């Protein structure tokens, strides 16, 4: 029998993964640093038309597309004359499990069924668990969800407790773990024990499943307004939502739509810290995932992450926790829609960005999620107070993650703060160089790196030579 200590299991990682996702990632390798991303997406995944058909079988997608007229009006009251873009919202909470994650789970679960796996496993503390569980029910497969839930005091984050409840409501076995990245170790052991399919968030299935979301937005807007969105804003954590949606927008012909990523600013909190774990009011859609996953996507639970956000991101902004709570309340109070934190992170940012855009422009917030006990601002703010966080009204610029949550005194205080994308692109390159120890960059590697950071080959070559002292062959 194989040893089950931490190091022994981690050493078997690649072999376990290969069996559990059925993808030989090595065959997409190119050059010394890269791989053929598009070939992986087209050979492993499914075509857009097939995906739409598969998703229809389990009631995924085709969610309502809503113009937020009162929020737009409010933004215009605060904006200079002529400014204040129209804000639209894709109501992804209408998916079967209450979030866009149903799209992401649908193709994995379909594939698992087709390939004869008896069940599916996902490592997630988010909506993805419920999505996998719900899709598995519809396809008569078993599901196991591995969550990071509680700290060493045994105190669970309310939002994650709710997500665990929802998985159990769909008949999942839920493994609730304390804080730590060794969740991945438990996950590997479950895969090995069960022979179930790894419904990873980061396979080509998971990403391609989101493409119809971008596609639907363009179709709906073309039908109603005869134009493409000027900007689409996407809450960013692991990068899958942004990657899938952007690919769908491009497939629908919206090449010049600006892609904006938005995360909650949790800078200063360590994501693997037992102490910090319950001092945040947001469990996803925050910089603690958004920044590391953008700058090193292959940290995921598969060897080559199909979610590669830097390829598509035109702008990256952050908002404060208190601002998201404010806009969540506003969405309920003046639009009559009570929704969860994920999409509202983007909505808070869109509210400010719209004020800088022209009146005849359109910005689309591309998701909502369900809300309820645990996910609601009341639950989160009560929890924050119990954990010693200073919750008050004031200037959100003063908010310090882990110490305070500051609810704006006025909607004009809601701000989308720019993240320096150029810096993130350079962190990505630094990480690639560190991981691969590359000294000379071949033509094919240069092409890969240029795609990865969404720059021309000439610009990429320049950065690699001047800032990283590398020899670039070709370009």
């Amino acid at each position, binding site marked *: 029998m194989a040893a089950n200590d931490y190091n022994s299991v981690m050493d078997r990682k690649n072999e376990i993964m290969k069996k559990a996702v059925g993808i030989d990632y090595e065959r997409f390798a190119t050059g010394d640093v890269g791989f053929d991303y598009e070939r992986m997406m087209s050979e492993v995944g499914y075509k857009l038309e097939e995906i739409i058909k598969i998703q229809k079988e389990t009631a995924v997608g085709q969610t309502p597309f809503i113009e937020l007229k009162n929020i737009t009006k409010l933004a215009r*009251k605060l904006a200079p004359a002529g400014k204040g873009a129209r804000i639209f919202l894709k109501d992804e909470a209408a998916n079967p499990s209450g979030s866009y994650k149903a799209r992401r789970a649908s193709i994995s679960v379909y594939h698992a069924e087709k390939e004869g796996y008896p069940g599916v496993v996902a490592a997630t503390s988010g909506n993805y668990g419920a999505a996998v569980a719900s899709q598995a029910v519809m396809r008569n497969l078993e599901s196991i969800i591995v969550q990071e839930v509680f700290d060493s005091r045994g105190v669970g984050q309310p939002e994650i407790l709710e997500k665990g409840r929802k998985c159990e409501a769909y008949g999942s076995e839920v493994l609730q*773990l*304390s804080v*730590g990245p060794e969740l991945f*170790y*438990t996950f590997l052991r479950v895969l090995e024990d069960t022979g179930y399919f790894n419904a990873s968030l980061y396979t080509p299935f998971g990403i391609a499943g989101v493409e119809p979301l971008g596609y639907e937005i363009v179709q709906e807007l073309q039908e109603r307004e005869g134009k493409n969105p000027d900007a689409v804003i996407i809450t960013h954590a692991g990068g899958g939502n942004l990657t899938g949606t952007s690919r769908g927008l491009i497939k629908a012909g919206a090449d010049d739509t600006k892609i904006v990523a938005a995360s909650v600013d949790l800078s200063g909190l360590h994501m693997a*810290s037992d102490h910090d774990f319950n001092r945040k009011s947001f469990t996803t859609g925050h910089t603690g995932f958004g920044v590391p996953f953008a700058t090193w996507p292959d940290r995921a639970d598969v060897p080559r992450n199909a979610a590669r956000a830097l390829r598509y991101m035109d702008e990256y902004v952050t908002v404060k926790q208190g601002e998201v709570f404010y806009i969540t309340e506003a969405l309920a109070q003046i639009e009559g829609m009570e929704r969860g934190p994920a999409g509202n992170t983007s909505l808070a940012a869109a509210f400010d960005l719209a004020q800088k855009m022209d009146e005849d422009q359109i910005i689309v917030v591309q998701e909502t999620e369900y809300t309820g006990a645990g996910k609601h601002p009341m639950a989160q703010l009560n929890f924050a107070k119990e954990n010693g966080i200073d919750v008050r009204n004031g200037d959100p610029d003063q908010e310090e993650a882990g110490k305070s949550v500051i*609810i704006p005194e006025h909607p004009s205080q809601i701000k989308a703060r720019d993240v320096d994308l150029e810096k993130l692109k350079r962190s990505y390159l630094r990480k690639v160089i560190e991981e691969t120890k590359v000294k000379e960059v071949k033509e094919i590697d240069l092409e890969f790196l240029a795609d990865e950071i969404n720059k021309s080959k000439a610009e990429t070559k320049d950065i690699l030579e001047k800032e990283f002292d590398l020899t670039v062959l070709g370009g």
Partner: protein
Amino acid sequence: MGEVIKAGSWVQIYQVVLPAGERAPQVPEDTKKVPLELKVKGFLQEEAELGDEVEVKTVIGRTHKGELIEVNPPYEHQFGKMIPELLQVGPQIREILREEEV
């Protein structure tokens, strides 16, 4: 003597997955000092008392062993008390929307 919990009861068990000394090398210091713990729910296989080492069968039929910690484990997350810091939002933005155009 504690209360005897019947076989077949819906319970929650607890186990240490990795003791404090065996955590992954990359975890921060505070996390290194505590074990990686697991809780899972299932049907109790043989009658037992709280604190006993037991075996459970989950809803999908897998078995797990661990310390019996709860019977009919509750969901205790809730909305809780009203948050006064949010009460001003609705009236304030409705007031702004009602303001006359200049």
